[in-house]
């Protein structure tokens, strides 16, 4: 942890709440990115990232100053996002609108960047996005988290396992199962790939 972050934590513990902005500016985007990978939508990603930062703030008095704030907040964010996904899965009312047949901003689903704005391409991209989201939504929270963190964020298996509080082999098997499920889910899109 560098001096600026250590100073910020000292100021926070001295009663200066605004000093937390220093830590948020440095780490919120990365935390949000991981949360997005796990939750799959921006609204939940922001909610999980906010909750992670709030939890970290409240635990700051007990934070060991020789530890890395980045690693610490990332682990909190992974758990928070994973819990949010599980909570969403339990709450059936939250599931339907998330993966819409026709994604739109109101549905809180992802709008993919499009370099070819033709109508046909847009249609295909939307279909691909829907299939991807459906495929990811079919994974268990553990599989989705392990897969996205390993493949999209390029985190090592050991770190993922530590964050998920599972053995390394379990995390690795979760990644492998996720890839297998995704491949079969995308088979129609790829013409039987």
């Amino acid at each position, binding site marked *: 942890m560098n001096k600026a972050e250590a100073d910020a934590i000292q100021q926070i513990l001295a009663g200066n709440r605004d000093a937390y902005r220093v830590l948020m500016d440095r780490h919120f985007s990365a935390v949000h990115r991981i949360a997005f990978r796990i939750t799959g939508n921006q609204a939940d990603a922001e909610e999980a990232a906010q909750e992670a930062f709030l939890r970290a703030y409240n635990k700051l008095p007990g934070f060991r100053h020789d530890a890395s704030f980045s690693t610490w907040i990332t682990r909190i964010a992974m758990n928070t996002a994973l819990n949010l996904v599980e909570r969403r899965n339990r709450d059936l009312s939250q599931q339907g609108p998330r993966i819409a047949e026709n994604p739109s901003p109101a549905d809180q689903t992802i709008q993919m960047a499009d370099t070819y704005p033709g109508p046909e391409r847009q249609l295909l991209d939307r279909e691909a996005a829907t299939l991807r989201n459906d495929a990811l939504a079919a994974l268990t929270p553990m599989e989705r988290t392990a897969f996205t963190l390993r*493949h999209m964020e390029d985190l090592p298996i050991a770190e993922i396992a530590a964050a998920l509080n599972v053995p390394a082999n379990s995390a690795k098997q979760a990644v492998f199962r996720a890839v297998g499920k995704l491949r079969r889910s995308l088979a129609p899109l790829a013409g039987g*790939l």
Partner: protein
Amino acid sequence: MTYTPHTTHFSEEDLIAYQLHESSDEAVIQHHLELCPECAATSDSIAETLRVFSSAPVPQPDLDRNWQRLRGNLSVLTPVPPRAFFPRFLLWPAAGLAAVALLLFTFVGVHISRDRDRIADLLPAIERMSHTGAGPNTAANTAINGHGPLTTEPTGAADPAMANHLDAAERLLTEVNHTSGSLDPATRAQARDLLLSNAVYTRTARDHGDLAQAAVLDDLGRVLTTLDNETSSPHSTLQLRLEMNTSGLLLDIRILRQNDDRQNDNRQ
């Protein structure tokens, strides 16, 4: 897995591990994929799946908006206070133990003090046994009867009347120590006479700060009071000697008297 070229295919899991660079048999699998179209197709499918999900973009969060939302939920923090030496739940048990230890200490202290008194009571007899024939000047400089520094040095305030009182007390105690039966009325009357003067000398010694002398005279006062009030019986004198340690008191009085004599000699 045990691999035999051209006869065994790799599993999907092995090929996923290969594509994710998590396989320990990467070279072997690569060699097999060059020779096995079926496994190569599966491996290509896995690679395409990974490519599809690699391109998923992540929207950028609005930092200011998130900060404003978060800040409203932040409380003012204070550092965790250093851990107390004793955990809070041990405070009351520790206080109880301390109180019990204090009571025990006081109780033992009182008994040790009493025992010290008893030991000191025996000292005169021990002194007599170890210094038979020796004069009072050669007696050890001990706190006799445990009441303070009764020394063999002369006191600064020698009083001829005091010497007479000590002489009378010595004779009375000698009589008591050598009487086997009950005391005669004359001895009892003498005790009564000495009682008043003894009280005066005890007060005088205290006023002069001679606590050792005052302590000896105080003991003498208790013996005289007992002699004056005890009913006469064949064993009353023996009981008195044992209970009041009249032998030890007699030695104390001799030392006091000797001190007074030396004081008078110094004056002359």
